[in-house]
């Protein structure tokens, strides 16, 4: 290897490694920690034998929606494992009951009549009505700044802006930055049967801070939102549930177009016999309200999240309603109508989990234990690496020092790839992957040893130092490639065949082994080549020649 080539390769390698590290640091990308390292909750659910894989996928989709509705879960991980098992991992979740409910129980789909809509996203109609009814304009509304979408309190995004009085909305907009009043219940009148959760905690009660119903009762009014995860979105006051998921027979997304009018996506609903009768009755009642009144709308609610709130068309009369057991929801103004239609159809069809699961494993790791594991892993890793560094420097002198820098380069690359995989692919770093990385360090250190021993052998064989360094690498890389192929093949097989934590281990081993080869070619070789030209190559006990145990040039 020429000196120039070696220098360029070395500099590029170091620049790439540390450049990537800097990039992840700047963008704040860090590895995603697994359950066992940060605490959380995991469930393994088993479907009955012979379950259709497509049905499993639908179940996973429903679970995902529900977990999002739980809020406070950063990055849930739900995956189909094997042929009939679903693994759910919820890092950071401590409330076991709620989490189990979310993934285990068969959900509830309801059609409720809309009674009123809050004109301000993120504000419960309950508080809005109370504020609007008071005469003073200084009334503040408990809006938490985080719940207003888009970071503005502008009411122009709300579809019903035109109905609100201008003075009130100005006050409300300003309220986002003011303090929350001491008593949000002041001036609020709850519907019959509905209680405050902090007074009587029962299904259908209203949360004092959000003004929403965390656990709706089908027989009572409910305050619901389109986005439960952030507690934001458009918020509705709805009546009791009128139609349940069991009243629906099917739902389909379809494209409907005519030659004169641009086509549009619709969702076709089909009710059961009793469901159709109920739907006719409900639509008769709704059609009694004038067009534009929110009460002409019904909310499709899945697990307390309002999925859609279509209004009845103007041509539906209060005497007939919608009869015949079918209905069409037209998605007019949406920008991405196709996906919206199919999403809604999925919700309507599979509001409930399409299959009954049994819980085969339930596990929760406390956050403190997770942190302990992480710090223990880090401490052990650092101590281990420090010991390796000392041993290598003592034995291989300046080459040992190169090895330590090389391990740092590999470490940096591993950190970068786990950060990127975490952000893009949702790959988590678990104890098993830590184990894989530690083994990888062993494999990687071995490559150095193989190479360094080669150099020694070549020097003993009578070669000059520079030639030994070059020739030694060509011999060593063959061994390294053969041995690493075994590791890589093993890691790939394990990754695809095994389940659970073994997968994480295999991935970590695969990554570190690939880096081992890359580092050997793009770092170790040029670095050692360059070193052979300096005084650290060929003079003194600390040099490469010193490490070979042949302090002087062999007689030739």
């Amino acid at each position, binding site marked *: 290897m020429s000196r120039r080539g070696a220098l360029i390769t070395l500099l590029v390698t170091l620049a790439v490694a540390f450049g990537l590290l800097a990039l992840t640091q700047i963008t704040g990308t860090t590895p995603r920690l697994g359950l066992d390292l940060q605490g959380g909750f995991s469930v*393994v659910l*088993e479907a009955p034998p012979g379950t259709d894989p497509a049905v499993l996928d639908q179940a996973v989709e429903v679970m995902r929606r529900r977990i999002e509705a739980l809020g406070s879960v950063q990055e849930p991980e739900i995956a189909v494992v*094997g042929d009939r098992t679903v693994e759910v991992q919820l890092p950071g979740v401590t409330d076991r009951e709620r989490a189990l409910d979310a993934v285990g129980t068969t959900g509830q789909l309801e059609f409720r009549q809309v009674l009123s809509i809050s004109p301000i996203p993120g504000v419960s109609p309950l508080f809005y009505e109370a504020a609007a009814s008071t005469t003073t304009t200084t009334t503040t509304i408990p809006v938490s700044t985080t719940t207003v979408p888009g970071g503005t309190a502008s009411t122009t995004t709300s579809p019903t802006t035109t109905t609100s009085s201008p003075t009130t909305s100005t006050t409300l907009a300003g309220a986002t930055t003011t303090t929350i009043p001491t008593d949000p219940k002041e001036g609020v009148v709850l519907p019959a049967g509905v209680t405050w959760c902090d007074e009587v905690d029962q299904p259908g009660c209203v949360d004092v801070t959000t003004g929403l119903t965390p656990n709706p009762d089908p027989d009572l009014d409910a305050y619901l939102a389109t986005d439960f995860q952030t507690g934001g979105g458009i918020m509705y006051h709805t009546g009791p549930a009128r139609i349940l998921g069991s009243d629906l027979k099917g739902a389909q997304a379809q494209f409907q177009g005519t030659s004169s009018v641009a086509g549009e996506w619709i969702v076709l609903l089909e009710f059961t016999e009793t469901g159709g009768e109920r739907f006719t009755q409900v639509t008769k009642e709704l059609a009694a309200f004038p067009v534009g009144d929110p009460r002409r709308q019904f909310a499709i609610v899945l697990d307390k999240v309002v999925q859609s709130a279509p209004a009845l068309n103007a041509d539906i009369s209060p005497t007939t309603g919608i009869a015949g057991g079918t209905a069409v929801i037209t998605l007019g103004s949406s920008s991405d109508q196709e996906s919206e239609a199919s999403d809604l159809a999925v919700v309507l069809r599979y509001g409930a989990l399409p299959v009954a699961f*049994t*819980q*085969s*494993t*339930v596990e*929760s790791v*406390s956050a*403190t*234990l*997770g942190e*302990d*594991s992480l*710090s*223990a892993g880090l401490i*052990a*890793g650092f*101590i*281990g690496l420090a*010991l*390796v560094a000392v*041993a290598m420097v003592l*034995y291989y002198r300046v080459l040992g020092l190169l090895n330590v820098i090389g391990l740092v380069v590999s470490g940096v690359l591993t950190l970068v790839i786990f950060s990127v995989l975490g952000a893009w692919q949702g790959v988590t770093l678990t*104890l*098993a992957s*830590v*184990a*894989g990385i*530690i*083994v990888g360090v*062993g494999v990687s*250190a*071995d490559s150095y*040893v*193989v190479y360094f*021993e080669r150099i*020694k*052998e070549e020097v*003993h064989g*009578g070669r000059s130092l520079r030639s030994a360094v070059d020739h030694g690498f060509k011999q060593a890389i063959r061994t390294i490639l*053969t*041995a690493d*192929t*075994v*590791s890589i*093949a*093993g*890691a790939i*097989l*394990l990754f695809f*065949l*095994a*389940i*659970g*934590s*073994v997968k994480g281990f295999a991935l970590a081993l695969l990554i570190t082994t690939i880096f081992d080869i890359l580092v050997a070619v793009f770092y170790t070789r040029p670095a050692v080549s360059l070193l052979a030209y300096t005084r650290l190559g060929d003079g003194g006990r600390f040099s490469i020649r010193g490490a070979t*145990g*042949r302090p002087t040039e062999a007689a030739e």
Partner: protein
Amino acid sequence: MSLWHDLYHGDTRFDFFGNRRRWFALSGVIIAVSLFALIFLRLELSVDFRGGTQIEFANPNDVALASVRELVDGAGIGSAKVQQVGGSGIRVQTTQLDAATEDELVAALADLLGVDPADASRQSVGPTFGSQVTRSAVRALIVFLIVIALYMAWRLEWKMAGAAIFALIHDLIFTSGIYALTGLEVTPATVIAILTILGYSLYDTVVVFDKLQENERERGDRHTYGAIVNMSMNQVLMRSINTSLISLLPIGSLLVVGSFLLGATTLREFALALFIGVATSIYSSIFLAAPLVGMWKERESHWIKTRHRLERRGVAEEFAVHETAGRPGAASAPSVSGAVPRPPRKRQKGPQR
């Protein structure tokens, strides 16, 4: 010269091949004891494999293990196991409990230990999940072995592949034998560790065989196969010692750190299997796999001829094999190890290319 000096300079002359019967006997005893332990003592499987409920708490107030046991026994949930884990942690294992009973037990334990119930690590496993994981791991293992054997047969040769798989099985039996003997619990972490040993054992054997093949190619006509085994093993000895040291250092630190910190229980379980396995792999690749290949190859007609030819000429070999079990007619130069004159070093005759 001291042993250290010889090691450092790669000048050792150990007769690995000649002493093979000793190593085989040692390995035979190890395997026999391990198999005995596996059959009669059985592996202690963790909750993950047999199903059950496991609750772990930190024990900051140093509540005595006996009082925890008393509480658990009094709860009327049948047979339960109470252990101390990590530096100061309590682990309770029972048969699988229903959710309500589990919650009650957790609350009672938290109360006794004076900690928050939310700080519990809990695990409830149905009996089928463990078997599913195990089945997938075993399937992966079999496919892995076949693929790797094919690869080694292609890259090296099939006798080497056979010897490597043999060494691997030796390592696996030994490691699981240790678990059966000591009664340590086999957890998913242990399974991962054993898979690691698998990879490591093969990796190590491949490095050794690679050297063997290289020497066979370069000097096959001037030495018996046994001598080539000896030569190769002496050449890779330092590398093996260094590599094992380097691999064992981080694993050892995991082991030590894991014994003091509760959170590292899994790490410690993992590190223990790994420590045993890696150490065994290094032993088996040099003392078992390579002599095995040597024995196998010595029977090939090409190597028999080479041996007879060298015997006729009476060449004193650098890496002479001294048969310990005095087989008649076996190659043996009447010299004591160490007294063998060192032949000229390779390439001293001048540049070869």
